[in-house]
């Protein structure tokens, strides 16, 4: 079965600094990969997704993620964070061959220093 790991529970960066949130997955083939964001008191919103093709995907709010098969990773990046990016970020994996369920990681909470 597929699984996903987000190694960092909390990340703190200064406003304007670059950001990288780590995500590693386990699956025997090319999975579906997602990043969702949950702002304080808000619902979950899709940032971006990877199904196939170009391994660098662009999302909303200036985020991007890169699928690296050799490292089983799908890290989320942003060149310059804003205070409004403070939120919890979830990586998720799906199994296209089996039309299987989508599994989420435990999340990374992002704190922004002014």
């Amino acid at each position, binding site marked *: 079965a597929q699984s996903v790991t987000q190694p960092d529970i909390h990340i703190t960066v200064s406003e304007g600094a670059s950001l990288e949130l780590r995500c590693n997955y386990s699956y025997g083939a090319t999975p579906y990969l997602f990043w969702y964001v949950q702002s304080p008191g808000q619902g979950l919103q899709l940032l971006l997704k990877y199904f196939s093709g170009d391994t660098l995907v662009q999302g909303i709010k200036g985020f991007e993620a890169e699928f690296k098969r050799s490292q089983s990773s799908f890290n989320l990046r942003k060149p310059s964070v804003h205070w409004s990016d403070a939120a919890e970020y979830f990586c998720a994996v799906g199994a296209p061959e089996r039309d299987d369920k*989508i599994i989420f990681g435990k999340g990374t909470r992002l704190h922004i220093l002014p």
Partner: protein
Amino acid sequence: GAGVSQSPSNKVTEKGKDVELRCDPISGHTALYWYRQSLGQGLEFLIYFQGNSAPDKSGLPSDRFSAERTGGSVSTLTIQRTQQEDSAVYLCASSPGTVLHFGNGTRLTVT
């Protein structure tokens, strides 16, 4: 509104009581998920309905938990004999394929 609707938004119950949580998915979405969100535990998968296939119940934590989806639409998650560790936010999501659309959740507090 065309989003996923969950009710109630908040539920406080006494230990040992049964509770029912409701999810109205987006019309036409064939897939429906239930997840549980507890502090530090991320989104814990509970159950997955896909079309007319048998549901994937592999995430249900105990036999006190059950869920059904009637007519391929509305879903109800039932927790029997609630325990304090059942306190969490229960999230429902629906999907036409792979991208999930989440409801705002039901916050369950077991006293």
